[in-house]
């Protein structure tokens, strides 16, 4: 925290990103009211900030400049937090407890989850009020735009981005500078567009949301710089409908930037005009695909189009269009401010900079993690993520969402970048990492992703529309114990054809979850098909519930819980489950206090 610390003695930052869903709104209101009541106005600033990334522990409240980090704060904790400001003794019960040492940690820079990250893009998230442009300016915001407008030519900006080695963070990893060059050199000059892709639809990914909700100006600044570099005066942000808070904050940010002369006509008296409009999506994952997104902005069904020219030649309304992801744009001010040489020294040779991952699933610390490219999966999952919940065994990590694949334990030391992930059959995608433990069934997981892509297929081209449906049906059959050996051949053939003949990336990548699980966990498929067995104990049709007579005390709790009346037995005598009646709901397993119900 820079400057602001000087104006106020203390700043209390309350996460109002993802934490709002765990009740941070009330905490914020409570702190503001109580601080006012105590007459702390000019001394203590209570400010809503963007996501800290450590959502697992939310609602999170931090106190600056000491960097005190409170977790799972509720309204009831408000008086203690304020009192602690005076006594200078942090509220112990709210501190984060290090799971390995069992000791409380006072400040966030001592928490491994944070200390092992490197935040370039998320630097300001979690310490500035996203609804106040002053906070952003205070932290050096819009300096990059000023620099570009006053000292650089468009070609110089494009060169700088090229030299930085930045690659698109939206999934495909296309070099951003080369894309911008395409737009700058496009034949059509009368009109050009910049589009920010904020349709973040990969289930399991929420980094774009955090940036938009926590630091919207960084994206606007990146877009304006792109506009200048590519000769465009009009930008759109396509935000998915499910992110109302992001839309609200963007609207506020755009209005404030216009008021400050940082967007709109004649920005900073440079003669450069740039206007940004928000387009709210209407609920279609495929609209994250570039051509579908443009069709949607144009007011049509979001069906991808076969490209006969690059979008930077012919995009939105047939005009040259530069489409980049939220995180890509948020990297731009950093590159301009610190220089491409500095930027490209971070990460690996072919994947520079940092990447934000959303770490979810069966990992101890779920949340957003920003690390340099090339860091190993082990570091992300174990050092930062704290390992697997409940001391279970790590099985695999699903990278890249529905277009990505599963990476097994053998590759934990894989340095994560665009190319290495591709090589192992996964994908960077937008950066979702779902950690799976031994209780995850890989066939069920593949089915889950296929269900998603199948539901989100636009229906335009035959292989994706009809093929994903059949793949899903086959996977469902296998999970239900009705699979045949031919099913694996069919899955492989369908995968081959769908990925090589589909029109857009959705279809082309839809088979990846199946292909990668078939590659690394084929035996699980075979167990389902040949032995009618689900090794992870997930596929309910294949499970058998029995009662271990030695452990059963005959309390009858299971029999009362069973909705199917499948359990019988005399009082105080071992009970038994009638496999014919059992519907495999698992109620008995949950109810039994003696561990006598066995699921196999």
């Amino acid at each position, binding site marked *: 925290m820079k400057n602001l610390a000087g104006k106020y003695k203390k700043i209390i930052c309350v996460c109002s990103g993802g934490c709002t869903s765990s009740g941070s709104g009330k905490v914020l209101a409570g702190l503001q009211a109580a601080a006012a009541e105590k007459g702390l106005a000019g001394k203590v600033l209570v400010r809503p900030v963007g996501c800290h990334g450590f959502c697992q522990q939310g609602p999170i409240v931090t106190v600056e400049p000491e960097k005190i980090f409170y977790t799972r704060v509720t309204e009831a904790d408000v008086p203690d937090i304020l009192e602690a400001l005076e006594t200078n003794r942090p509220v112990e019960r709210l501190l984060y407890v290090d799971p390995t040492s069992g000791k409380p940690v006072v400040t966030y820079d001592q928490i491994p989850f944070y200390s092992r990250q490197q935040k370039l893009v998320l630097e300001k998230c979690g310490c500035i009020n996203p609804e106040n442009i002053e906070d952003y300016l205070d932290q050096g915001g819009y300096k990059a735009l000023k620099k570009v407008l006053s000292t650089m030519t468009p070609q110089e900006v494009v060169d700088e981005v090229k030299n930085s080695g930045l690659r698109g963070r939206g999934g495909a990893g296309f070099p951003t500078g080369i894309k911008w060059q395409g737009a700058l050199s496009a034949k059509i000059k009368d009109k050009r567009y910049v589009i920010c892709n904020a349709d973040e639809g990969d289930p399991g990914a929420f980094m774009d949301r955090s940036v938009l909700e926590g630091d919207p100006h960084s994206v606007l600044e990146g877009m304006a710089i792109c506009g200048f570099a590519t000769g465009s005066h009009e930008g759109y942000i396509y935000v998915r409908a499910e992110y109302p808070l992001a839309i609200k904050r963007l609207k506020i940010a755009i209005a404030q930037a216009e008021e400050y002369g940082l967007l709109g006509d004649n920005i900073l008296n440079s003669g450069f005009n740039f206007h940004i409009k928000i387009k709210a999506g209407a*609920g279609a994952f495929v609209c994250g695909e570039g051509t579908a997104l443009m069709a949607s902005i*144009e007011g*049509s069904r979001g069906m991808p189009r076969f490209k006969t020219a690059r979008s930077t030649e012919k995009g939105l309304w047939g005009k040259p269009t530069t489409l980049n992801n939220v995180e890509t744009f948020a990297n731009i001010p950093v590159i301009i401010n610190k220089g491409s040489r500095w930027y490209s020294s971070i990460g690996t040779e072919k994947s520079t900079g940092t990447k934000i991952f959303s770490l*979810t699933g069966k990992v101890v610390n*779920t949340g957003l993690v920003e690390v340099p490219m090339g860091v190993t999966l082990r570091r992300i999952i174990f050092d930062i993520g704290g390992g697997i919940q409940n001391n279970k065994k790590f099985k695999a990590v699903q990278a890249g969402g529905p277009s990505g694949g599963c990476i097994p334990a053998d590759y934990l030391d894989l340095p994560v970048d665009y190319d290495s992930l591709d090589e192992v059959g996964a994908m960077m995608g937008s950066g979702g990492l779902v950690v799976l433990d031994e209780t995850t069934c890989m066939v069920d997981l593949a089915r889950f*992703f296929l269900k998603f892509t199948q539901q989100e297929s636009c229906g335009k081209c035959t292989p994706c529309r009809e093929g994903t449906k059949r793949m899903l049906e086959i996977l469902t059959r296998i999970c239900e114990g009705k699979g045949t050996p031919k099913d694996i051949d069919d899955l492989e053939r369908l995968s081959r054809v769908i990925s090589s003949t589909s029109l857009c990336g959705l279809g082309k990548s839809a088979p990846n979850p199946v292909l990668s699980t078939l590659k690394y966990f084929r035996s699980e498929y075979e167990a389902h098909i040949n032995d009618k067995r689900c090794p992870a104990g997930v596929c309910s049709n294949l499970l058998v519930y029995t009662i271990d007579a030695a452990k059963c005390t005959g309390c009858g709790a299971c029999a009362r819980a069973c909705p199917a009346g499948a359990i019988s037995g005399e009082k105080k005598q071992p009970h038994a489950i009638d496999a014919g009646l059992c519907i495999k709901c698992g109620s008995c397993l949950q109810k039994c206090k003696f561990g006598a119900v066995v699921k196999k």
Partner: protein
Amino acid sequence: MPTCCCQNNAVDDRQKALQRALSKYQNTKGALIPLLQEAQEIYGYLPGEVMQYLSKELKIPFSKVYGVATFYAQFHLQPRGRNVIRVCTGTACHVKGAGGILQSIQESLGIKSGETTADLRYTLETVACLGACGLAPAMMVNNDTYGRLTPAETLQVLKQYK
């Protein structure tokens, strides 16, 4: 349709609101989707006549308006409940037991995903991902997000919505 004066007023107000929306988007390219969004805000869903009206005003074939409205998950062609429950069944939530949450809601409300209770109190839906994966399993009721749910808590939450 039953008519009484108050209802007529409501109808009038909605028409006026739609008119205002239309004039806001006059001469804007790609206005169809934002207008459908506004119309749905106003009417709660997209009645056929409203789509037909927009089609005439925007000079876009009615079939295309229908095609767009049925493409996007956000649009509804049937009336909806006062409270819309959206249970996330995204990856993280799936792994963390979204199935159980959904099932408990379905059982307690007696409706399936995509349906509305007879008293129009709730509409139940599933969504692919709410982007609150760190708080899985999660759901949204109207614009409020709830995370780290258990089936019992979920039912408690729903009771608050009348």
